[in-house]
Structures are given as structure tokens and as C-alpha cells.
């Protein structure tokens, strides 16, 4: 019996080079605060990025969401594809000095998906676990009912807590700090809701020694104030620098900017299902058959979008044109797909071929407070559609209203974004393009109700393929099918900008998290 071991390429050597301990306090300003200090309560980026400091996971995610050893030194499926074995790191202690053992893993995996009243928890990542078997203090086996190729990715999101403190602990106790005991590089010292989270260095950390004495994370929701705080020197690092300020800040010697592509794609979801679609009519009124059912119409719309212009004009250069669901370098991305060229003439030809030479009237919908420059992007797209003969209207609204209505299928053309939490292609493919199947949880965000059996089949196979290389190929193939058929129209990938003191820089992360470990001296 051989275990497949996964060797670790030191592509992230930069992260691992340890700077000398700075004996300094770091202050980070983020746009939104965490909703709780309970690591399993709420699965959002705001919460997760804090938890990365206090807790470890079996498997960590590097800056490009690549999987790295965490509390597990090695892992892999056994000969039985329904059983995964994890070899745990030895000599690791929790913040209170007690040793970390496999029992803690078992406890954590039982608790993580089951926190009471969680608005959105980690259940999706633990749902596939049938049982956890403790072999010895440093070995754990996870049993599943069917092969789960994404086991490692799923486990890379779950913070490990100790049974001693975590048993019976409530979210409130985590907030109070009593039971906030992890194995991470920093320990929780202070949590003032709405104001700050203070963490101090854990000198006994098993990994790279924490570079900062204390790390304070403070929410400043107004982006102008956030930038001002950095300029005033009140904070050392800020996240989410607004695109409008970037040009000016680049010239400012008191600020250093770090940029990186994110795993978030912005795209148009099209109603590819209904005969009549609510937001499309003939020009001048009157019902028409849903033009989006025709692949040629969808392709025309994709070709009508000048992605370069959107990136340059609307996003001020801070974005990357997209032809598929994840940027280059991510797991499952296809090398055979190019970003569609802007070709309005061909678009009009396709419309004519499909019988819509006279165009049609369409209302585009999107949020105005969720993604970077979302309303502006929507308007730009609408204008581009006008140029190929469509009569367009735009309706951008707050996300609190938008997503509910979009999920109720009130719209025909929707601007949405998707960030892959697992850092690989199956996440968007399954959620956005797979046929909507509530019982399985597939196509949960497929608001266009696109359905392609060929695609579904390949995706299903991929998600049962444990071999990485094979799975990657299958995912790429599924992507190609979807993009060929214009299941959705990706427009661009967001690029995130962090600002720091001039003597520092931030190693950008595709998951958009802001972590103290990523703050390093400037070159």
C-alpha cells in the first residue's frame, strides 16, 4: 500500500524567507469587519482572513491559493478512493501549551459545519465527510461515501481548534476570547466589535516566526478615510484601495502599492432557459421569443463587449480581461481559450444570422455596491450593446435587493461576480454553469438556468477523479465546452490593490485576504 505523497514545490519561497523579527506593531485597516471571532461561525473573507492568524488548518493556502502543508505534513487518498489519510505535524502546541493531536482534528471536523445560527457556515466543506478515524495521535483518516477529489481544498478552509476548549463552546465565548485557543502564529488578545481586533505574537509557533509583536486589524469602511489613514501614518497597511485613487497614490512617495489578480471573475449571466424572458422585448414593445436561447445571439453579445475598454476606461487599468472563469495559472484553467476579441461587426452578423437583425430591447441588471465599479461596468456594457443595434436600459440596485430578485429569476441579463473559494475551476463551474439541482447543491447560483448535459457529464466525472492531472484536464475540457457554448459571458477578473507604508509591501493574494504574514519589507 502506498500513499500518494504530494511534493511541495517551493514556488512560494518568497513567503518562506523569514525576515528578522521586526519587534514592531502592525496596524492593518480593512474595509469591513469580521462578524465574529468564532472560526466556524461565518464563512466570509472578512472573518477567514482574521482566523488565518489565530488558527491553522490541516492544509494552508498560499498567496495563489496553492495548497501547502499546514498542520498536516502530508496527505492523500489511500488505495481506497473513499478514504483519505493525513499525517499530522508533531510537536505543535496550542496557545495554552497543550499539544495538538488528531483528536482535535476529529473534534473540529465535527463542529465546523454545525455551528448554531450560522448565517453561512462551513457545512459545504464538511458535508462530504462521513466519518473521521483517529489512527494515532498524529494520523487521521477521513471516510467518505464517494470519492471527493476536493478533500484537500475543502479542508484548507477549516480552522483547527482544540477539543479541550472547543467542546461545548459557543460563538459568544469565542467573541469573549475565553476559548479562542488555536495553533496559529498570533493569539487573540482583544476584540472590540466595530473597532479593532488585536493579536499578539505566539513565540512558540511551529512555523515561520511571526514578524510582528502585535497585529491590529481595524475596519474603516469609507475608502476615502482608509486612504487618508494610510497617508496620515495611522495605519501601516490598507486593503481595497479604490481604483480612482491609484494613479495619484502611485506618484506619492509616502505610499507603496501592491497589486494582484484575484480569483473573482465578473460576468454576465444570461437567461438561457425560458421561452419568454421578462426583461427582453422587441424594440418598441411587444413580446418576442427569448433571443438568448440562441448560441449565436450569446456569442454576439460576448463579441460586442470591448473588454480592453472596460479594463482601461472603467477599471482604470486595474483589471484583466477574461475569457473564462479563472485567470491563468489556476487549477483547471484551459490553455485553449483566448479572451474574445472585440468585434462588433461580427456581432451584428451573428445577430442577423439568428434572425435578430433588427435587434431587440433589453434591460440589464446588476448591483451597485458589491463589486469594484459594478454599476459603471454595467453601463459601459449597455452602451456597447447599443452600438450593435440593441435598445438597452440599465437598472443597478443595492445588493440587498439585487441578489434576492436575481435568484427569483426576475431578470434576463445579470451582472454578477464569482470568487472561487477553493482556488480552482470546479467551484465556478459547478455553481454557475452546472444544471440547477437543489438536492445536490449544483447550479445553486446558475441564475440563467443554463443546462448542458454534455457539460454536466464531464463535470461530474471530474469531481469524481482523484488524480490531479486528470481532473485538471477534465475541468479544462468542461470549461471549453461552456465557453464555446457561451454559457455565461465573462468580462474581466478583478485586480486588488493594497497600500502600505513605503518601507513595506504586501504579497498579493488571489483570495483577496489581507494577512500579516504577507506584509514584508519592500525590496
Amino acid at each position, binding site marked *: 500500500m502506498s500513499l500518494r505523497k504530494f511534493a511541495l514545490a517551493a514556488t512560494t519561497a518568497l513567503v518562506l524567507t523569514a525576515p528578522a523579527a521586526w519587534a514592531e506593531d502592525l496596524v492593518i485597516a480593512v474595509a469591513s469587519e469580521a462578524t465574529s471571532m468564532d472560526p466556524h461561525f461565518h464563512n466570509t473573507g472578512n472573518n477567514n482572513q482574521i482566523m488565518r492568524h489565530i488558527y491553522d488548518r490541516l492544509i494552508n493556502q498560499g498567496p495563489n491559493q496553492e495548497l501547502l502543508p499546514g498542520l498536516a505534513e502530508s496527505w492523500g487518498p489511500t488505495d481506497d478512493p473513499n478514504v483519505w489519510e493525513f499525517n499530522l505535524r508533531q510537536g505543535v502546541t496550542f496557545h495554552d501549551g497543550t499539544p495538538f493531536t488528531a483528536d482535535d482534528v476529529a473534534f473540529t471536523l465535527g463542529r465546523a459545519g454545525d455551528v448554531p*445560527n450560522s448565517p453561512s457556515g462551513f457545512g459545504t466543506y464538511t458535508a462530504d465527510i462521513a466519518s473521521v478515524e483517529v489512527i494515532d495521535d498524529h494520523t487521521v483518516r477521513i471516510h467518505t461515501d464517494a470519492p471527493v477529489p476536493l478533500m484537500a481544498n475543502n479542508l484548507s478552509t477549516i480552522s483547527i481548534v482544540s477539543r479541550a476548549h472547543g467542546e461545548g463552546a459557543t460563538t459568544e465565548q469565542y467573541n469573549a476570547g475565553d476559548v479562542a485557543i488555536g495553533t496559529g502564529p498570533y493569539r487573540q488578545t482583544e476584540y472590540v466589535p466595530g473597532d479593532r481586533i488585536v493579536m499578539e505574537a505566539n513565540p512558540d509557533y511551529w512555523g515561520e516566526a511571526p514578524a510582528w509583536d502585535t497585529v491590529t486589524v481595524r475596519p*474603516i469602511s469609507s475608502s476615502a478615510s482608509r486612504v487618508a*489613514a494610510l497617508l496620515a501614518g495611522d495605519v501601516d497597511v490598507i486593503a481595497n484601495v479604490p481604483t480612482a485613487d491609484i494613479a495619484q497614490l502611485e506618484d506619492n512617495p509616502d505610499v507603496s502599492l501592491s497589486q494582484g489578480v484575484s480569483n473573482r471573475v465578473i460576468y454576465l449571466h444570461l437567461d438561457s432557459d425560458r421561452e419568454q424572458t421578462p426583461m427582453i422585448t422587441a424594440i418598441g414593445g411587444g413580446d418576442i421569443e427569448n433571443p438568448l436561447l440562441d448560441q449565436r445571439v450569446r456569442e454576439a453579445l460576448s463579441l460586442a463587449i470591448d473588454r480592453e475598454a472596460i479594463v482601461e476606461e472603467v477599471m482604470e487599468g486595474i483589471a484583466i480581461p477574461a475569457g473564462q472563469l479563472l485567470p491563468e495559472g489556476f487549477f483547471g484553467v484551459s490553455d485553449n481559450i483566448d479572451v474574445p476579441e472585440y468585434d462588433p461587426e461580427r456581432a451584428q452578423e451573428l445577430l442577423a444570422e439568428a434572425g435578430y437583425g433588427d435587434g431587440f430591447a433589453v434591460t440589464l441588471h446588476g448591483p451597485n455596491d458589491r463589486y469594484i465599479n459594478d454599476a459603471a461596468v454595467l453601463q459601459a456594457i449597455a452602451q456597447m450593446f447599443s452600438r450593435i443595434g440593441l435598445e438597452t436600459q440599465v437598472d443597478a440596485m443595492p445588493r440587498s*435587493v439585487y*441578489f*434576492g430578485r436575481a435568484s427569483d429569476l426576475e431578470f434576463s441579463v445579470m451582472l454578477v461576480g464569482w470568487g472561487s473559494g477553493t482556488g480552482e475551476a470546479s*467551484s465556478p463551474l459547478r455553481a454557475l454553469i452546472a444544471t440547477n439541482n437543489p438536492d445536490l447543491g449544483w447550479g*445553486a447560483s446558475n441564475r440563467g438556468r443554463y443546462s448542458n448535459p454534455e457539460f454536466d457529464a464531464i463535470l461530474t466525472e471530474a469531481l469524481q477523479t482523484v488524480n490531479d492531472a486528470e481532473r485538471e484536464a477534465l475541468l479544462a475540457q468542461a470549461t471549453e465546452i461552456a465557453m464555446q457554448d457561451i454559457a455565461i459571458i465573462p468580462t474581466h477578473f478583478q485586480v486588488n490593490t493594497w497600500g502600505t507604508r513605503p518601507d513595506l509591501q504586501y504579497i498579493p493574494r488571489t483570495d483577496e485576504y489581507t494577512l500579516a504574514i504577507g506584509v514584508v519589507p519592500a525590496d
Partner: protein
Amino acid sequence: MTVFIIRRTLQAVIVLLVMSAIVFLGVFAIGDPVAILISPDATQADIDAAIRNLGLDKPIWEQYLVFLGNALQGNLGDSFVYNEPAIRLILQRMPATLELAVVAVLLSIFVGIPLGMWAGLRPSGVAGKSIMVGSIFGFSLPNFWQGIMLILLFAVILGWLPAFGRGDTAEFLGIRSSLWTLDGWAHIILPAINLALFNTSLVIRLTRASVREVIGLDYVKFARAKGLSRRRVVGVHVMKNIMIPLVTVIGLELASLIAFAVVTETVFAWPGMGKLIIDSIFVLDRPVIVAYMMIIVLMFIAINLIVDILYSVFDPRVRLSDMKR
């Protein structure tokens, strides 16, 4: 007096009840919190569980009754987002907002009234005219812009004051507040000025108008005819008569500062209730929104009661209780 208070208490209960219905129905009619909160990866089973969890599967009138029942026991529901009692969330952040509001009101009183009196007593002088023009800026310039400008000037360019946040707190007489520390004052001064600007302008203009009105009245002339010093004429005879409109405005001011310091709290990242409410609105955290509104209504009622009582203190012609006014 007791009759008066009892009657007002009854009125308060009715207002609270009506408000609770209006706010509850209003908030619950908009948007879909499940769509906002739940992870996009969730299965239908998860979504259904979440809906049940939040109590959103019941018809709205039933939800309201459940809410009322809990409210009578002092429980205004748990936040969808934080999973903590909404009241606790609000009360946690209330001291910060109260601090800010109190300092802002004090600023508007101690800056606004003297400036307004000066402008009222010497309306044609340069100082008097500048004060009035200044007050126009005070309530015309958008709050958000003023705030950012204050930060830019004092924190970024001059570096004299911190750019955001609340300072260190200390405990004194059983109250924990950032007003007891020097660091606290350094942090509170800019947001307090920002919050106070609009109201200071109002107070200046109101004081000036009242002074102009009162100064020409016979009893002021009579006071002068008695040979009283100017200080006494202005400080006692005039002041006491302008207190009624001032107290009204300042009382309402205080209430609205506490309730709606949202912009200032957002610009200065001040960890108060205002920030909580705006964030809750964005993510449709309904229990927090409703709880907040109820607390604010209660506060307005209380402040109005105090203002009415102060009327009778300042103007003996005003009688509370059942006597006709």
C-alpha cells in the same frame, strides 16, 4: 406633574407599539437576507435550514407576533449576521455614539450660543456678519466632505490628530469612556466637530434671531432703564427668554445626533451605533434594524419629555399637567 408623566408614559407606549409595527413591516418587506448572507455554494437544504433558522418561513404577521412576544420580555431578536442579541450589539456600541453626540452638542452649545449672541447684539459689525456667513457654510457643506477635509487637514497634512477611530478608554465613576483620557480627546475632537457643524450653525442662527427679537422688547428696555449692567441685561434678561426655543432645538439635536451620526461614524471609523445600523441595513440584518429603531424611538420620547419639563423650568408661564396652557 405626576399626572403629566403618567400621561406621557402611556403615550410613549402607544407610539412604541405603532412604530414597532411600521418598522417591522417596512423592513421585512424589502430584500432577501438569505440571498445576502448565505454562501453561494450552499445546497438547497442549507438554504432551507437557514430560512427556518432565521424564522423567515412563517407568514409575516406571525413573525411580528413572535417579535412582540419576545419584545415584551426584553428580547428584540438575535442578529442574523452576528448571532448575538440585537440589543446587546446596540448597547455595546452605544457608549461610543453617546460620547460623540454629547461632545458635539456641548460644542454646538458653547460655540453656537456665544457666537449667535454676538451676531444678535452686533448684527452690523464685521464679526457679526462673518458669523452669519460662516453659519451658512456650516449647514450647506455636505457632512461627508467636511469630514474628509478635516481628516486631510489635521491628520494627513498637519499630522496633529489621529485620522480615525476612537481613543483609549478609562473608567471613572463607574462609567467607561474615552473622554477620561487624553488620547480619547485627541480622537474625538475631529468627529465631534464634524458632527457638530450643522447643529452649531442652526444654534447660531436661532440664537441670533431670538436675540434680535427679544432685544427690542420693552422688558429689556426696562431692565436697562433700571440701570442694570449690560452683562446682566444680556446674560439674565435676554438669555432666559431665548432658552425656550434653544432648548427645543438642542433637545431635538441631541436626539438626532445620537440616532443619525452615521455619516460621521463612517468617515471617522467611529465604532458607534450609526455604523452598526448602516452596515446592518446593507446586509439586511433585520433584527438589528428593528431593535435600533425601537431604541431610537424610546430615546426621542425620553428627550422630548425632558425638553417639555425644562420648558416649565425656564418659562413659568408654561404649566405642565392638566392645566390649560
